[in-house]
Structure formats: structure tokens, C-alpha cells
């Protein structure tokens, strides 16, 4: 299939509405009779709520209601949940404190939810919110993960003594110790992984609506997984039974993980709509996004690498303290454990690995999955520590990687994962060529004569994507299965509607999924509609995150198409009076082998609905099939990113002059979209390395980087042109050979940038983000 099939850079179908201003994001909806909600938030990092007096607010112009935690409690609604059980070394379950959608007697971070003021207009709600008098008794707070574990630190939840939610381990401790005992060289390296604020450009929003006649609730929300939201709100929060709640996630303006989670605001809007019997709309201001969206990363790590005299890795030992924030967000516990520790083998043949992770409560915004989720942190540990070893052992950073690459597949790592396929030397080699590694020495000399310090840095990363299979994630503690569903509906005229449980919030599913249908059924791409994001349309699905929609979501569509084709062949066989086994289907035509008989796909689809030309007692009329697809393994995208940069030693400013990415994503459906995903990921990775940092003031627990005035978002002139290349080994674990591409850039780039910076400065220990001030300070110490 040419033009619009698999592998073609098809221009996106969804673009038409976005470039003309016709997209429909949650805040674009105005429901009849809608009122506006504004949240009263805690100005303190930690405090007891002694009383809430809302009388003045209730008396203010336009105010419909003021609802607080006690009202939620009176309605016996449950709290928000963390859906992944992690056990400590001693086998005990993680110690999770309660997470009410509105605080009852205690607030635990700046921005915590205290009450909602509902009014006729947003301005009135906001005016009245200032009149809600909350009497707080402030308590000492702690925002740093390591400090939260110190004795005498403020106790945040009674359930987690000493603020320790879990102390988790993975790997063989004794074997790893033995490997270290026999090592010729041991490299020790401590590193931070800075807290990030996801900052999808569309702020979160929610509109709750209630239909008194039927008792039905509808929630419009900025979600990456509306079905999971419905499940949690019905089964756990117990707002209303699942069949009485519709969740719609319309156009969503970016997620990067932050819109996976079930948040207090959407919960409260849905519930409040039932209380006030009219739609309640809330849209985050950006400052609320900073305060109350789930943040990402925030690790302190001590790593040790044992090597033999030739630089072959013998063992890796890692201890990480993961700041989880004030409450456990929906998947918070999985990120620094099963999405992190399991990736510590990188692309390398490491016989022994032992990792321990302390998950810690602090008085900060909850921390959960953000683009890459655990895998950027793992890559950063492995790639930085390996570079430190190369530096100490005076080995070329490319050479030490080559010496340790895994070369035979499948490969069982000591940390659960079984890599199915890859070709790591190929991506390294291609990246070395793209960046002209041989010419680097000359470029460095030229920079030096211009007063600049030049460096080059590598990151040969691996990730586990296509988050699934259900049995595997279940055995690791996931509260859900991670399959995906699809329903392929062929209309009588031969046009096709695909209902998918995946959700597109920038990924371009309406195009790539349609490319698959177009390729398989020979239907023009304009005759394919991808439907997603509405629990009333799609029966169930797990949503989009973890680079899973291609590998898992499209595979489900592929399976459903198999069933459609099988049934259509039966119908075609009857229509052409041939044996079913003689029917062939290609390029949208059914033919009878060895004859010139043929039927076009729309002729068969029409016949399927007319039902005149086949025995309807043997074959049901209609042409609609569904599939639930559960893969056999994770997928393992991998590749090599190389960064070359220049530092101005007078100001400490860093300029990335070259950024090369060579990735193996398995089969590519649409190379244009894949490249776009890589670009965006790298931008976020560079942002983490050089620009972005969520900083809480240690004493007060106030978020110092609470707006774009202080939190440095990557802008166009902060970033270089990215040179992107591909290698390909087809994934054997799903029918399409797809590995996934959404997170690679964010996973690989930070280590590449920081390794380049270390090369330029001759210093390994540089914290992220390496701002001009940070770099300048390091140069002051070393000079």
C-alpha cells in the first residue's frame, strides 16, 4: 500500500482542527447552566486545619456553594488511591496514608486542596475564595527526601513512621557484594535527579455534570486514560456506580504522564455537580499546575560500579531515595521501583545488580510518572556512573560501552527484564558517524582558541515500553492489567470506525492508527475514523502512557482487523460461490485464487449488512469485531544519543551545538510523527539537564519555581537542531514489531548532555540542572 500505509510520513488528519482553532479541549466546553469552581488551597506546607468559616464567602455575590473536606466525608466518599502495591524488604506492604480529595483536618503541601468555592462566574468564585477563613496551626515541614528520613523530621502521615513508605530491594545482594570483592576497579558516584514540573501546555481542567432524572454523571476531564478515571471514581471513590458515570477526555493538550492520574480537582467537580445540581467547571491556572500537578523525578542516588581491569562491568550497586511527595499519586510507587530498578542493566551485560530504594513522604506536591517515568532516572544512573568509570580508567567513553554491550538475545538481566532483541553497536556506530566523532578533537581545539570549553557526551540508553503484559505487571504489584482493547466497525459503505482504549493527546493516533487500517483493509485513509476518549463510545481501555499505544493499542486493532478480514472472507466466499479457503484478500480486494473473480471491500461490507447473499444462520449479519490484546513481553527500544556542547567559562552559559539521536523503535508506522516524538523528548531531556528545576524553599516549603517566571521552560532559542537517525530490529513480542518512541528523548538526553558537560569541564560531579550559575560556581571551585 503506497501513500497512506505503514511506514509513510502521512500528514496528520487531526491537524485540520488544531490549525484552524477548532480543537475542542475541556475548557472549550460551556455546558448549559455551568457554574465555576475555584479551589481554596493551603498556603502552608504543613498545617492542622482548626476550622473553616465559609459564611462570608457564601454571602458574596454569585456564590452557589462552598464545599470542604467534611462535606466529602459526610457523603462517605473514599479517598484517592495508589494503584501499585510495592513491598518493603521485610515483605510488608507499603505504608500509604489517606488521600482525601479535600483535606479534612490536615494539609500536607503548599497547594493542598482545602475547599471549592462554586459561583456564577469564575471571577466571583475567585473573589469569594479569599473570603473563606481557614484557621491553620502551622507545623514544621520537610521538602527534601533525605531530610525527611532523618530522625526528628516532621511526621507527615501516621501510617508511615519516619516518613518511609517503603524500602524496596531488587537483585541479589550477596552475589553483587562478591562481584565487588573481586573487582579490579570500583567507581563510586553520587547524583541527583532533579524534580521536574511536567507543564503540558494545556492546564488541567474538569467539568462535572449531573442529570437528576437519570442520576447519570458526566465528567469532562483532561485525562490520558478516561476509563481508568471512571474505574477509580466509581470503584474506589464510590462517587457513583461505573455505569452511571461517563468520562470524556476530549482533545487534550499534552500530558507527558501528568494527566494519567486521578486528581482531587476532577473528583471534586464531579461530586460537586451532584451537590449543586448543575455543571461545575474548573480550569487550572498555570500557578495551580505548578502547585498541584504531579511532579516528576526527585531522586538522590549513590551508585557503585565494579569493573575488571579491562573495563568490563562485574556489578552495580545502587541506593536511591525517592521523594514521593505528600500523598501517593495513582502510580507513584511503581515509578522509582519497577520502572526504575528493572532498567539498571542498561544496554550492558551486567552479571550482578543490587538496588535498594527508599520511598519517602515529604511536604511537596505528589511525585509520579513524568515522560520516561523511572527509566530516565535509571539511564542517568547507569550512563553517568559508567562515564565516571571510563574517566577514572582512562577509557574512551564509546569504547567502554562497546566492551560491555549485550550482543546475544534474548538476554535475561539480573533485574527481572528479559530483553528480546536489539543491536546496540549499530546505533552507537551510526551516532558516532552522524556527530563526526573523529573530528571532535579538532573542534575542541577550535573552541579553546575562542575561549570556550567544548565537550562531548554519550548516552546509550534502554527503556522498557509498551507497558504490559498484564500477568507480568500484576506479579510486580500493578492493580490493573495493562492490555489494550480495540473495536473495528466496518460500515455498510466500507468506511471504518475504530474504537480504541488508547488516548491521543498529541501523539497523532488519528493518523497512525488509520494508517494501519488503511494498509490492512485497503480503505482510503480518509474513510477511517479513530474514536477514543469517551467511555460512552469505547467499552474499556487502559489509555496512553509508557509509549504503549503503538505496541499494545495498535496490536489490538491489528487483532480485531484479523477477525474482520476472516469474517469478510466468509461472506465473500458465499458471494463468489467459492470455498472460503480459496479467498484471498489484498489491496482492498477479495479474489478467488486461480480465477478472475473479485469483490471490492465495500461490496462485501455492504453485503454483510444487507444479508441477502449469505446464510445468516451460519454467519451473523454485520461487520464489527473487537479484540483485547495482551502482549507477551515489554518492548525494549534502545539507542544512542550524543551531545556536543560549548561552555562560556566567563558566564557559565552552556550552548548545545550538536545533538544526535539514533534510536531503534522497531517498526515505524509514520516516520514524520516518530521524529516529532524524538524531538519533543530530547527537548524535555535538555530541559532537565540544563534548565528545569522544581525548588521548594527548605524552611517554609513554598514552591519557589511556581511560574514560568522562575521555572525555566525550554524555549526555541535554548535548543539546537536535532539530528535524528534510526536503526531497526523488529520487536518479536507483538504482531506489528513496534517498540514505542514516546519517551526515548527524555530518557536518553539528560545523561548525554551532562556527560558532555563533564567532558567540557573535566568534572564529573555537576548537579542538574546545570544552569549558568551552577556551571560558573563549579568553575570557580576548580580554577
Amino acid at each position: 500500500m503506497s501513500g497512506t500505509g505503514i511506514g509513510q510520513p502521512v500528514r496528520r488528519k487531526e491537524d485540520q482542527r488544531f490549525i484552524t482553532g477548532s480543537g475542542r479541549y475541556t475548557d472549550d466546553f460551556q455546558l448549559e447552566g455551568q457554574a465555576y469552581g475555584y479551589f481554596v488551597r493551603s498556603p502552608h506546607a504543613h498545617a492542622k486545619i482548626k476550622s473553616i468559616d465559609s459564611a462570608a464567602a457564601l454571602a458574596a455575590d454569585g456564590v452557589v456553594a462552598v464545599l470542604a473536606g467534611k462535606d466529602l466525608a459526610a457523603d462517605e466518599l473514599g479517598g484517592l488511591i495508589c494503584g501499585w502495591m510495592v513491598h518493603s524488604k521485610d515483605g510488608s506492604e507499603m505504608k500509604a496514608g489517606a488521600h482525601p480529595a479535600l483535606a479534612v483536618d490536615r494539609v500536607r503541601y503548599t497547594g493542598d486542596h482545602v475547599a471549592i468555592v462554586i459561583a456564577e462566574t469564575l471571577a466571583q468564585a475567585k473573589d469569594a475564595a479569599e473570603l473563606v477563613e481557614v484557621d491553620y496551626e502551622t507545623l514544621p515541614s520537610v521538602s527534601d527526601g533525605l531530610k525527611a528520613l532523618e530522625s526528628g523530621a516532621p511526621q507527615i502521615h501516621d501510617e508511615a513512621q519516619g516518613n518511609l513508605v517503603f524500602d524496596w530491594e531488587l537483585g541479589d545482594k550477596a552475589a553483587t557484594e562478591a562481584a565487588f570483592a573481586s573487582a579490579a576497579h570500583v567507581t563510586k558516584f553520587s547524583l541527583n535527579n532533579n524534580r521536574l514540573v511536567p507543564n503540558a501546555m494545556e492546564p488541567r481542567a474538569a467539568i462535572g455534570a449531573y442529570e437528576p432524572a437519570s442520576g447519570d454523571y458526566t465528567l469532562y476531564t483532561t485525562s490520558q486514560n478516561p476509563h481508568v478515571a471512571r474505574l477509580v471514581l466509581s470503584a474506589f471513590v464510590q462517587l457513583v456506580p461505573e455505569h452511571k458515570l461517563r468520562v470524556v477526555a476530549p482533545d487534550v493538550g499534552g500530558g507527558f504522564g501528568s494527566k494519567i492520574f486521578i486528581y482531587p480537582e476532577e473528583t471534586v467537580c464531579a461530586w460537586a455537580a451532584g451537590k449543586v445540581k448543575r455543571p461545575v467547571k474548573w480550569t487550572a491556572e498555570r500557578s495551580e499546575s505548578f502547585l498541584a500537578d504531579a511532579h516528576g523525578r526527585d531522586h538522590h542516588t549513590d551508585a557503585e560500579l565494579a569493573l575488571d581491569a579491562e573495563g568490563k562491568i562485574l556489578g552495580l550497586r545502587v541506593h536511591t531515595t525517592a521523594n514521593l511527595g505528600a500523598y501517593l499519586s495513582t502510580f507513584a510507587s511503581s515509578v522509582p521501583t519497577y520502572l526504575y530498578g528493572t532498567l539498571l542493566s542498561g544496554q550492558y551485560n551486567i552479571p550482578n545488580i543490587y538496588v535498594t530504594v527508599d520511598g519517602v513522604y515529604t511536604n511537596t506536591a505528589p511525585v509520579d510518572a513524568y515522560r520516561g517515568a523511572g527509566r530516565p532516572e535509571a539511564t542517568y544512573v547507569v550512563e553517568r556512573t559508567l562515564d565516571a568509570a571510563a574517566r577514572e580508567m582512562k577509557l574512551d567513553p564509546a569504547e567502554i560501552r562497546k566492551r560491555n554491550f549485550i550482543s546475544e538475545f534474548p538476554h535475561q538481566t539480573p533485574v527481572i527484564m528479559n530483553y528480546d532483541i536489539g543491536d546496540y553497536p549499530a546505533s552507537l556506530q551510526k551516532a558516532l558517524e552522524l556527530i563526526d566523532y573523529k573530528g571532535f578533537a579538532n573542534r575542541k581545539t577550535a573552541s579553546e582558541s575562542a575561549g570556550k570549553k567544548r565537550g562531548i557526551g554519550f548516552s546509550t540508553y534502554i527503556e522498557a515500553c509498551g507497558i504490559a503484559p498484564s500477568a507480568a505487571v500484576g506479579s510486580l504489584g500493578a492493580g490493573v492489567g495493562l492490555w489494550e482493547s480495540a473495536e473495528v466497525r466496518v460500515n455498510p459503505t466500507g468506511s471504518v470506525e475504530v474504537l480504541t482504549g488508547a488516548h491521543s493527546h498529541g501523539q497523532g493516533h488519528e493518523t497512525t492508527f488509520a494508517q494501519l487500517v488503511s494498509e490492512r483493509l485497503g480503505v482510503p485513509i480518509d474513510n477511517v475514523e479513530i474514536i477514543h476518549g469517551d467511555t460512552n463510545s469505547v467499552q474499556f481501555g487502559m489509555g496512553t502512557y509508557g509509549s504503549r499505544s503503538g505496541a499494545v493499542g495498535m496490536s489490538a486493532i491489528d487483532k480485531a482487523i484479523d477477525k474482520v478480514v476472516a469474517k469478510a472472507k466468509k461472506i465473500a466466499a458465499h458471494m463468489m460461490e467459492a470455498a472460503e479457503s480459496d479467498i484471498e484478500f489484498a489491496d482492498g480486494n477479495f479474489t478467488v485464487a486461480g480465477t478472475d473473480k473479485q469483490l471490492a471491500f465495500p461490496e462485501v461490507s455492504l453485503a454483510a449488512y444487507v444479508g441477502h447473499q449469505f446464510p445468516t444462520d451460519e454467519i451473523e449479519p454485520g461487520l464489527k469485531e473487537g479484540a483485547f490484546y495482551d502482549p507477551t513481553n515489554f518492548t525494549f527500544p534502545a539507542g544512542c544519543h550524543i551531545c556536543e556542547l560549548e561552555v562560556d567559562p566567563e558566564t557559565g552559559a552552556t550552548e548545545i551545538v550538536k545533538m544526535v539521536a539514533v534510536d531503534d523503535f522497531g517498526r515505524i508506522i509514520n516516520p514524520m510523527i516518530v521524529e516529532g516524538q524524538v524531538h519533543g523528548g530530547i527537548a524535555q531531556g535538555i530541559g532537565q539537564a540544563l534548565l528545569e528545576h522544581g525548588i521548594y524553599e527548605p524552611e517554609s516549603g513554598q514552591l519557589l519555581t511556581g511560574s514560568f517566571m522562575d521555572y525555566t521552560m525550554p524555549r526555541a532559542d535554548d535548543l539546537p537542531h536535532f539530528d535524528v537517525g534510526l536503526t531497526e530490529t523488529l520487536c518479536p513480542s507483538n504482531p506489528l514489531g513496534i517498540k514505542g518512541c514516546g519517551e526515548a528523548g527524555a530518557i536518553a538526553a539528560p545523561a548525554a548532555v551532562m556527560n558532555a558537560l563533564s567532558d567540557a569541564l573535566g568534572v564529573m560531579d555537576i548537579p542538574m540542572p546545570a544552569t549558568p550559575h551552577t556551571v560558573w560556581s563549579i568553575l570557580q571551585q576548580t580554577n
Partner: protein
Amino acid sequence: MTTVSMTVNGKAVSEDVEDRTLLVHYIRDHLRLTGTHVGCDTSQCGACVVHVDGRAVKSCTMLAAQAEGADIKTIEGLADGDTLHPVQAAFKEHHGLQCGFCTPGMIMCAVDMIRRIPNLDEKTIREELEGNLCRCTGYQNIVKAIKAASEEMRA
């Protein structure tokens, strides 16, 4: 309350609004032109960029009352009927958007940029995008789209 009258996408509009109403809220909530977005509250992100009397401005940093008598163009008014503006077409052709949220502001910014600057090179485009944030694309294809549109419109 104050009465504001202006021309929006060629159409005269007039309405009573609260004095404190921002132009972006007037456009979105009163005129129901929801293509113009709000992505921040500190006048940084540029999702709200519209043209006021032919120049790109941030509609979140202006009261509706300040636009009294002005000629406003929003993303909805950019295409000529069914014919896309060259910048719109270039964003599609060069994959200059992903989630689409920053896109209207980016396109309105780009149209203004191309109007002002005859020969746009990559460096200039990146500098001129200082007032527009995108979290999806890493800007590479936005830059590419603007350059292509600029060349096409000069041709």
C-alpha cells in the same frame, strides 16, 4: 460594567463586560472563539496570541476594554474560507504541532513574524519565538514550518 465594541475577524461585535475582563476571556467566553488559548498566568506562553490592529499581542495581557475600537484577528479568522493560510498549511505539512494547544498562538506569532521580517533564517525564527512556549515539538518542526511558509510567501 463597560461596553466594548470592536471588530473580530471582520465582524463588528459589541457587548457589556466587567471592566476587569481580559481580552482573551472576552474572545473565548463571550464570543465563543475558543481557538485562542490560555496556557499560563504570567504572560509568558503565548498560547493566547491574536492580532490587534495587525500586530501580534498577548490577549491575556490586555483588557477587552483596552481593545475598544480595535480590529482583532484570531486563529479562526486566518484562513480564507476553506483555503488555509500558508502558515497553517506549513504547520500541517511540516508537522509543526502535536497536541495543538500552543498552535493557534504559534501560528498567529508566525504570521506576524513573516510580515515583519523579510528573510527569516533559523536563528532569527528561534529568537522571534521567545514569547511562545511549546512542550511537545522541541520547536524543530515549528521552525521548519515557519521558514517554509516564509519562503513560500516571499516567492
